[in-house]
């Protein structure tokens, strides 16, 4: 069959890219080969638009065992324990079929983690929806949440943290990012680099169907008129099979049968085989007749491009076939030798005894295109809202408005649908700044959190990028953990648009700067471009997933107030920055202006000292101040605990709204027992930390002198009604 221009286009390849393919192949590719190129050269697999920028991120550190480039990042948490983690997007599939899209997103990220030999111990998610009043939002929310729960619950892995946001910008393009965290012995990590010639290539897991054969299969519809059976199929998650796959893989990983292992994610068999061969500078030969298929008459094209879930590719040591097979049989899973490694440096595909396709591995990997796309800097917004010119709103009314808004309402409607307790090591569930998961059988724990701030990033990508790393760092610190490393999911619009590419480049500059300053390296991540429709791109939404370590788990900390009559201290300076704040958005629908500045020096100082205080057991509760400012942070500490506060109004700031709702960065609220006050203040002074004693905790009432007094019960109700009424 002749490869026409139309077919090339349907495969998402540009004319120039097709020429490059012909040059690399030294001939015209056939359809199978073209499909493989299209899969490997698309944005998702090749990172062709993002690679140059990603390279600049700091990825090293004493704690880093494996940075980006493997299935997931790996960090060292001492005592031979390693933590393996990564975040990934499943935005488009979740918009089409929210339940299955979200479920398979969770399934995919779990495979990335257990491929490396780690048992998953926690799941997180960052989900962004359109406006609640958009007709699709409700069913998308329902579907996504039950899909995430459906998969994680069935696997028996606790879903412990996340974030849920609503914004018009996601009306036509929701974001569903899932993060998985696993634990393993640091000497038992498995990689995807093939080694040795003539080693068996083994297919394990579910059978291959015609699932998710993307644009490619649309192309195939055109040259085959009776194409009903060739329509791409939505991927359906099968968490039960994945659970079996997890147990079987971990069982096999107990000894040294595996040379390399790679899950079949996007572009399934194609990317997994090419990646293993490419990393090992080898060739790979597959006999496609042997691929376990779910459907009749599947073509090599379909087998290579299928995105059926719950499958893995393993390169086995010599003499281990029977041993390994037995394990997979025990777990009722397919185990089929489908090929071998070769010295040809080609991907060779055989079907019915004939070579149906042969492509140099490097043409698919190292020689794939990389673009230095044009990008333009964002102009700084000059707008500044003059707070004095706004109609005055009572503090209580403004607070109620925020606490009852979709974005700030209590998320237990969501988190109650996730099993947070299975595995028996969840020290801190959803609802605090970060979740805490104990390392099984040990007296230490990790803290995990995911965060994003699309509004900040939209108005100023550089400082937004910085801010989001800092907020994540603060969340980890607030539960008393030392932040170790992050993963990131970069959700952006169309990179071929200069402005969008600019948002991407500038966000990364910000992320890089913050990560460097805080020694908070990036060890894994994922880029999702083309979020949006036509010319309407989503706000730039980088999502940061952080992991921290609690070395001595004596008294885990969360943000709930603990006792009456304790002192409340605000760490960090309050300037009263209201532009881009949720106060202006929720109360005045004002969306412009610049986000608050980030002062990395203060950020680091404040964070380090707060962590010291917590580790010295001097803090009863801690919470970072983020969206909504001081008063929202205080409310959250009250609502969780049934204890109120009594706050004296600061005389320093003239404007109440600025003081209580300002979103200045680098701030924390601490609850301090009176008996610890002297040592706390001493430490703060010694370290030049700016702080204010703002009040005390008290029974039953949330009270700000001269401004408001509300019972905690009312506050709770206000914060809890939205989801239940939606």
């Amino acid at each position: 069959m002749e490869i026409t221009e139309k077919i090339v286009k349907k495969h998402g390849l540009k004319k120039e890219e097709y020429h490059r393919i012909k040059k690399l192949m030294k001939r015209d590719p056939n359809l199978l080969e073209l499909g493989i190129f299209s899969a490997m050269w698309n944005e998702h697999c090749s990172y062709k638009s993002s690679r140059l920028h990603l390279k600049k991120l700091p990825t090293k550190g004493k704690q880093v065992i494996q940075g980006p480039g493997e299935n997931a990042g790996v960090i060292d948490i001492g005592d031979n324990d390693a933590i393996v983690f990564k975040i990934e997007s499943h935005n488009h599939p979740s918009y089409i079929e929210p339940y299955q899209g979200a479920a398979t997103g969770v399934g995919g990220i779990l495979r990335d983690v257990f491929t490396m030999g780690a048992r998953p111990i926690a799941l997180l998610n960052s989900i962004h929806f359109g406006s609640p009043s958009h007709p699709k939002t409700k069913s998308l929310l329902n579907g996504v949440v039950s899909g995430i729960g459906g998969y994680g619950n069935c696997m028996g892995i606790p879903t412990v943290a996340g974030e849920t946001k609503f914004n018009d910008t996601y009306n036509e393009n929701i974001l569903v990012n899932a993060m998985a965290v696993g634990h393993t012995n640091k000497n038992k990590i498995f990689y995807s680099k093939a080694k040795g010639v003539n080693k068996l290539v083994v297919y394990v897991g579910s059978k291959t169907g015609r699932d998710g054969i993307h644009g490619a299969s649309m192309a195939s519809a055109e040259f085959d008129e009776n194409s009903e059976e060739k329509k791409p199929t939505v991927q359906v998650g099968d968490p039960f099979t994945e659970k079996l796959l997890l147990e079987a893989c971990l069982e096999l990983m107990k000894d040294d049968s595996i040379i390399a292992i790679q899950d079949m994610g996007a572009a399934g068999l194609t990317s997994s085989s090419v990646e293993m061969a490419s990393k090992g500078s080898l060739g790979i030969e597959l006999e496609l007749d042997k691929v376990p298929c779910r459907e009749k008459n599947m073509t090599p094209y379909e087998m290579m491009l299928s995105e059926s879930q719950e499958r893995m590719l393993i390169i086995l040591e010599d003499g281990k076939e029977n041993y390994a097979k037995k394990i997979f049989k025990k777990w009722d899973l397919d185990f089929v030798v489908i090929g071998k490694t070769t010295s040809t440096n080609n991907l060779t595909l055989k079907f019915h005894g004939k070579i149906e396709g042969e492509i140099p591995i490097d043409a698919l990997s190292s020689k794939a295109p990389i673009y230095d796309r044009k990008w333009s800097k964002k102009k700084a917004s000059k707008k500044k809202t003059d707070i004095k010119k706004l109609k005055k709103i009572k503090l209580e009314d403004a607070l109620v408005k925020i606490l009852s808004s979709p974005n700030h309402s209590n998320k237990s409607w969501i988190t109650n649908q996730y099993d947070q307790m299975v595995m028996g090591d969840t020290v801190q569930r959803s609802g605090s700044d970060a979740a805490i998961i104990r390392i099984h059988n040990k007296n230490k724990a990790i803290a995990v959190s995911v965060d994003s701030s699309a509004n900040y990033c939209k108005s100023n990508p550089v400082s937004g990028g910085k801010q989001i790393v800092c907020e994540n760092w603060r969340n980890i610190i607030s539960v008393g953990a030392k932040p170790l490393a992050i993963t990131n999911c970069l959700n952006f619009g169309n990179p071929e648009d200069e402005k969008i590419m600019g948002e991407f480049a500038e966000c990364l500059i910000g992320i890089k700067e913050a990560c460097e300053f805080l020694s908070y390296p990036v060890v894994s991540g994922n880029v999702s471009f083309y979020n949006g429709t036509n010319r309407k791109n989503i706000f730039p939404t980088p999502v940061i997933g952080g992991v921290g370590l609690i070395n001595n788990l004596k008294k885990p900390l969360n943000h709930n107030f603990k006792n009456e009559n304790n002192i409340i201290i605000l760490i960090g300076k309050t300037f009263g920055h209201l532009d881009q704040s949720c106060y202006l958005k929720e109360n005045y629908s004002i969306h412009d202006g610049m986000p608050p500045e980030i002062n990395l020096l203060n950020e680091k100082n404040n964070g380090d000292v707060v962590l010291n205080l917590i580790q010295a057991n001097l803090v009863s509760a801690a919470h970072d101040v983020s969206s909504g400012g001081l008063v929202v942070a205080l409310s959250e500490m009250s609502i969780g605990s049934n204890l109120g506060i009594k706050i004296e109004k600061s005389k320093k700031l003239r404007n109440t709204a600025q003081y209580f709702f300002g979103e200045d960065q680098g701030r924390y609220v601490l609850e301090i027992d009176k008996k610890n006050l002297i040592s706390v203040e001493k430490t703060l002074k010694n370290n030049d930390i700016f702080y204010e004693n703002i009040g005390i905790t008290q029974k039953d009432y949330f009270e700000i002198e001269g401004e408001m007094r509300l019972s905690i019960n009312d506050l709770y109700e206000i914060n809890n009604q939205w989801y239940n009424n939606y």
Partner: protein
Amino acid sequence: MKSSVIVFPGSNCDRDIAVALEKMQFKNKMVWHKETSLPKSDLIVIPGGFSYGDYLRSGAIAGKSLIISEVIKAANSGCLILGICNGFQILTETGLLKGTLLRNKNLKFINKDVNIKVLNNKSKFTSKYKLNQVLKINIAHNEGNYFTNEKHLTELNTERLIAFKYCDKNGNINENSNPNGAIDNIAGIFNSKKNILGMMPHPERMIDNMISNTDGVNLFSSLLN
């Protein structure tokens, strides 16, 4: 005390219950569902999870497995059997316990700490609790909505075969304290000989103050007596 935990494909609270049993000094063995005989045990636990993905009906397929006929034999000869969550569902599917577990009334998976009340402490499973004691225990299930027919319900009541009911923190048993729609707020039941207990809440999640509370401990220590 010797205990055995039956592991099905898709079980996922098997490790949690093993940790609890060992912490409470049981000599515990894990038993893979394909095995055809049981190690000698005083207590057999069928753990929570999603055996066979909960496909068809939760517990249905595990209820047909090889090892289950051994469990039934053991049960009939008086061995203590504890089914937690999915284990409870499996026990109803095998007929060892009557009734069934329907989908939660809100059709959603529910994970939270709920209160349950001890309605009968005259059993090998509950003797260490006080009568009417209110416990706080975690639930995590899709199908915990217990249902049975009138006749059996009467029997449960007259024979005092209801082990636990959902209640509020003050012990009130009503619609508001019923998380999943279970008939009469039933959270756990015995068979007529009271050597079998099926319950939706997870006592094995409540044995460690670092994680939750220790309201589950007495269930295990009752068994040790």
